[in-house]
Structures are given as structure tokens and as C-alpha cells.
């Protein structure tokens, strides 16, 4: 990329030549073929058995969690859920390439990254059941995780807002002299928000060590990618901002890992942002409030099921002799049991006391919040049956 601004020398041309797409070809890094065999000329990332198995198991756990919680939502046990089926490699393998001190800012379909960081099954359940043990104190919808101790920034619903925030967070890490980067996940739909433009441009101009990780899964709810943008995906935009960019196969854990690993090294060494576009497919419905049969075909889904990232890495592990199919099935069964047991246990935990409703709006509640809480408590004590979740603990 040439360093050009309007004051630098700009090359001349003497013919009218309007630049068309296709002049820049951004290929997709793929290390494992869909059947799990490595490409002959591809370099496998340096990962020992434990590391690959951890990535694989985290992907499996994420799938188990998603299946169980979608069912729990259907049963009316939780209000909402959002699965990441088909995209487990994108979140898990990228998180595996980071260090624990790196900040993760996610959109909402990256539970795999959180699971990789060690968020417990109980913690996942606490959040989804909005109970008093949940660090967000039950204030946000299910799947809006946050874990300070794991350097996982609390998720919010507004799309793309975390993108310029990640630039700022990374700038702060740099200023504090930390050997840490910020990774920022978002979907290809969110990349249409103004905050994408703002965040990438600021990160480039202000030299922020941030990794922008786009999950291009083909759909933003019902909107297919061809109604989202007309250019060469998201990756092509990185170059326009002066950002080093790579496109990877998002269903190939090794490609995702290798790209993220190198992106982290460059971001730290050169104090610059990197854009990674991971091509994948949202096998799940957008959320439990969505039914994809209205906007896409079974054939299309089947084509992508054949590219399942978990099967792909599993096949590689088996060929390597690092995974026993029978043991693997037992392990997954154990995960299912654990998730179900935690679910049953956690759904009985009460929600926070009513006093929490005014805490954390400010560092200390001002007069008007205190007054409103007092009035509310008096009201609840007058009609305790109408507010059964809090009236017993006023």
C-alpha cells in the first residue's frame, strides 16, 4: 500500500481509466480442506496436541450449549437466545490466537471466544437466567455476556458501536505500555453501520493495536450479503483505510488461528490495526425470534452443513490420531449432561433484590433515584403478589 495523501506525489495517467472492481483480488486463506485434509502447500500453525484439542473441545461445547439453550428458549425457560452454529471456528480459533491480557469486544455471536477464555457453564447459565449471581445483575437480555476478569467487554445490542470503542481501548492499552491488543468482532451487516467506518478510520489514523474481526456469514437476519454491499466483501474496505487486511475461511480453525496469530504480532510490533474477514455461514437462525425458512433454501443450508467447522477439525484430529471417536462422543454426552444439570440448578436462583434497580446508573444513586426506589418499594409492599420475584426480599 502506498502512503498517499493529497500533498504527496500522485502518479499520472493520460487516459480516462475508471477503476473497476476486480483489480485487487483478495483470496481466502484455507489450510484445511472441508474434509479436514490439509492443502499440500499450506503451512499448519504451530499448535501442539493440547492446544488443538482445546480449540476442538471448546467448539463442541459451544455447539452443545447452543443446542441446549435454543431448546430452553423454546420451552419458555429463558426469554431469548442466539446460537453461533456453523461459526464456532471463527470465534474459538481467533480467541485461541490471543493472550489473556488482550481485550475482547464482541457483537453477540462469539460465545465461543468467551468459552475459550474459561467462562464456566454456570456463568453462562447465570447470565441467561438473569439471576442475582450474574455479573450484569440481570439487567441485560440473555447472551449479553461480560467478564471483567477474563477481559471480555460486556456486550450491548446496538450494532457496530463496539468498533470505534475497540480503537479507543487499544489506544489506551498502547498508551499504558501494555503488551496487549484489542480484538473486535462484528458481522458483515454491522459493517454497514457508520461506526464501522468511524472505528476503522480512527484506528488507522491514530495507530491503534486493534484486530477487527468480521464474521461474514452471508446474512444479517433476513438480508443476504448481496443486499448489504456491492464491493468485494468487507476485506476490500480495509485497504481503503490503509489497514493491513486478510480474508480467511471462517470454517477452517487453522486458517482463522494462523491469521489472528500473525495479526496480533503485527498489531503489537507496528502499533497498527489489522482487518480479518472470516467467510462463514450462519447455519443457525438469526435468533430464537427468527425463522430462516422464510428467506433461504434448505439446499443452501445443506451445502454449508457439509463445510461444518467442527467436523473439519475433528477429521484432522482423527487422521492425526489425536482424537478417538468413541471417547469424543462420550465427552460430548458429558457436556450435554453438565449443561442440563447447571440449567436446572441455576434456573432456581432468584433475581437481584429490587435495590439493585437504581445501582450502577451512577457511581452513587442521586436523590431522584433514591426517591424513585423508595416509592417503588412502598408500592411493591402494598401489592406483593403482583411482584413475586422481589416482594419477598424488600
Amino acid at each position, binding site marked *: 500500500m502506498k502512503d498517499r495523501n493529497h500533498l504527496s506525489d500522485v502518479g499520472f495517467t493520460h487516459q480516462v481509466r475508471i477503476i473497476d472492481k476486480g483489480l485487487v483480488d483478495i483470496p481466502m486463506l484455507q489450510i484445511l480442506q472441508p474434509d479436514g485434509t490439509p492443502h499440500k502447500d499450506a503451512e499448519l500453525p504451530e499448535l501442539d496436541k493440547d492446544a488443538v484439542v482445546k480449540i476442538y473441545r471448546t467448539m463442541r461445547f459451544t455447539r452443545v450449549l447452543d443446542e441446549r439453550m435454543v431448546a430452553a428458549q423454546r420451552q419458555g425457560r429463558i426469554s431469548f437466545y442466539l446460537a453461533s452454529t456453523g461459526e464456532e471456528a471463527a470465534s474459538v480459533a481467533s480467541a485461541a490466537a490471543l493472550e489473556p491480557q488482550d*481485550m475482547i*469486544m464482541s457483537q453477540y455471536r462469539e460465545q465461543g471466544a468467551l468459552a475459550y477464555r474459561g467462562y464456566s457453564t454456570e456463568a453462562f447459565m447465570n447470565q441467561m437466567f438473569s439471576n442475582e449471581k*450474574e*455479573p*450484569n*445483575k440481570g*439487567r*441485560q437480555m440473555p447472551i*449479553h455476556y*461480560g*467478564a*471483567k476478569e477474563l477481559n471480555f*467487554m*460486556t456486550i*450491548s445490542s*446496538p450494532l457496530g*458501536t463496539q*468498533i*470505534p*470503542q*475497540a*480503537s*479507543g*481501548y*487499544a*489506544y*489506551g*492499552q498502547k*498508551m*499504558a505500555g501494555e503488551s496487549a491488543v*484489542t480484538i473486535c468482532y462484528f458481522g458483515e451487516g454491522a459493517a454497514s453501520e*457508520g*461506526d464501522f*467506518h*468511524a*472505528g476503522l*478510520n*480512527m484506528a488507522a*489514523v*491514530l495507530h491503534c493495536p486493534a484486530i477487527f474481526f468480521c464474521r461474514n456469514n452471508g446474512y444479517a437476519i433476513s438480508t443476504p450479503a448481496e443486499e448489504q454491499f456491492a464491493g468485494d466483501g468487507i476485506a476490500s474496505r480495509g485497504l481503503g483505510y490503509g489497514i493491513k487486511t486478510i480474508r480467511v475461511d471462517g470454517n477452517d480453525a487453522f486458517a482463522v488461528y494462523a491469521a489472528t496469530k500473525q495479526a496480533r504480532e503485527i498489531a503489537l510490533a507496528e502499533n497498527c490495526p489489522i482487518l480479518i474477514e472470516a467467510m462463514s455461514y450462519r447455519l443457525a437462525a438469526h435468533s430464537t425470534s427468527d425463522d430462516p425458512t422464510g428467506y433461504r433454501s434448505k439446499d443452501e443450508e445443506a451445502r454449508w452443513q457439509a463445510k461444518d467447522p467442527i467436523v473439519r477439525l475433528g477429521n484432522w484430529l482423527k487422521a492425526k490420531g489425536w482424537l478417538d471417536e468413541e471417547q469424543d462422543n462420550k465427552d460430548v454426552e458429558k457436556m450435554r449432561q453438565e449443561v442440563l444439570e447447571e440449567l436446572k440448578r441455576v434456573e432456581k436462583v432468584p433475581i437481584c433484590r429490587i435495590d439493585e434497580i437504581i*445501582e*450502577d*446508573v*451512577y*457511581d452513587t444513586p*442521586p*436523590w*431522584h*433515584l433514591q426517591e424513585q426506589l423508595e416509592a417503588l418499594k412502598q408500592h411493591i409492599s402494598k401489592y406483593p403478589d403482583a411482584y413475586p420475584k422481589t416482594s419477598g426480599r424488600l
Partner: protein
Amino acid sequence: MAKMNLLQAINNALILAMTENEKVMVFGEDVGHFGGVFRATSNLQEKFGRARCFNTPLTEQGIIGFANGLASQGSVPVAEIQFGDYIFPAFDQIVNETAKWRYRSGGQFSCGTLTIRTPYGGGIAGGHYHSQSPEAYFAHTPGLKIVMPRNPYQAKGLLLASIRDDNPVLFMEPKRLYRASVGEVPEEDYELPLGKADLVRQGNDISLLAWGAQIEVMEKAADMAEKDGISCEIIDLRSILPWDVDAVCQSVVKTGRLLISHEAPLTGGFASEVAATIQERCFLNLESPIARVCGLDTPYPLAHEKEYMPDHLKVYEAIKRTVNY
């Protein structure tokens, strides 16, 4: 003590804050070497380096998004939005992100260190987009503090308090007074409390409530009323959110009458909130309806600026109407 105008007082506060704490960073459009279009950030880059005082690309949502991330990381950002009129592209970041950060994370993370500085207000032939007073939009947002100084002494003390306060503060500066308001300002460090009103003038017949540049207008109107034998008490609210209800009640209980004035349009303006609250709390003390003297419910006009503004004559007339009710 030194004589300073409002801009110099702000610049002085920024220098003190940046000297005291290396985590304080100042950024926005043109705030770097140039020192800001109003010169509020003059010499900061020379003193503290480009890493701590820098220009950003021209993107308000980017500036506040960036500031949110920086604040949540533990730095102390002081972000500038060049005109309050251009804060709206950042409305989503401020309302949905800045203000809710601590609450939604259960106190795990916060943007408490963030201060957003922005010039506001009319009277400078600024037309639609260099004159607005958007405080009421933000007053509807739990989690924010909103502060509006009226003179250099307040600007310095309130800005230092805002930067150090562990809540995000929207600090709105009356640009009409940037150079017009000059006063004695202590050179040393001091703070003025957030959330507390300031009693500008004692009186017995009517309470006049305003903030920022509008206090000057209230004083002029009160002087006129004084000649008619009407004694006005003037209160500068200083903080819009949270606001000092006790100070206003105390005054209204004494005078029995209240007039609120702001440059922003009447409908949905912050005077509505104050009027409703005071009506609830001081119902038995009120001897006349609460008066609101505000901007018209129109976009801020250029040629009719003088007619639009809630000037001292409009306030004076409203004082007489209220007292003679």
C-alpha cells in the same frame, strides 16, 4: 487570582488536569497543534505531546465511540465536539453506550472517566447549526451528568470536577461568553460541586432559574424589575442532571413564584421537568403559575435571532405577569 476569559479558564483547567494525571487525554476535531477552533486547547499538544492531545478524523460518532473505549480501559478522555449542534451523530454512542456502560455491566466496566466538552448556545449569528442548546435531549438519559457553567470561575472549577468525577459528564460551554465573560479566576487548583445550584442573587418576590449564558439575561431582567420594586432571586442551576431540587424548592417556598428560562425550544425543554417537579413539591406555596421563557419551537433562525431569543425584555415581561397574577 488572574483575569481570565472563559476559554482561558477552560484551557487552564485542562492544563492542570493533564499535569496532574498522565492518563488525561484531550482529542477532537482541530484540537491538536491548532488548539481548537475556539482555542480552548491552545498549547496542550506542545506541552503534553501528540499522544495526549490530538486531532481525530472528522467523525463525531467516532470521537465518542473512541472515547468510550478509552474510558472503559481506564484512561481519562476529555473529548471535544466542535459545536453542540454536531453532537447528534454521536447521540447513539452517548445515550446507548456511554450512559449505560456501568449499569449494563453490573459495575464491571464504566465510562466514568469520560468528559465531553462542547460549545452550545446562540447569540452569535450561528443559524441552525451553530446555536443549538441540546441539553434536554441528554437530560432524558439516566447515567449522564450534564454541567453548564456561566463564567470563567465556574468553567474552571466545574470542568476540573467533571474530569475527576467518576461518571460521564457532558460539559456544555456557552460559546457566546467564551471571550465576552472575563473574571477573576484562582490560578491554583479548585473544584466546584456537581449537582449543586448557585444562588446568584437573593430576592423575595420571585425566583428566576436559568443556567449558562442565560444567567446574564436574568440579571438584566432582574435589574429592570428591581426598579419596579420587584425583588428577584436568581438561581444558576449549573448542573442539569442531576439537578439541585432542594435549592430551587427552598427559593420557591420563600418567594412563591418561579420563572424558568432557557435558550432551547420550549416544548420538551428542561424547564418542563423543573416546572413539573416544583409544582409537585411546592404546590401549596405557589401563588402563580410557573412561567417558562424559552426559545420558540422552531429551528434556530438566523435573521430572526434577536426575536427568537428569550432576552431580558421577554423575561422582564414574564416577571411582571407572574408577580401581578
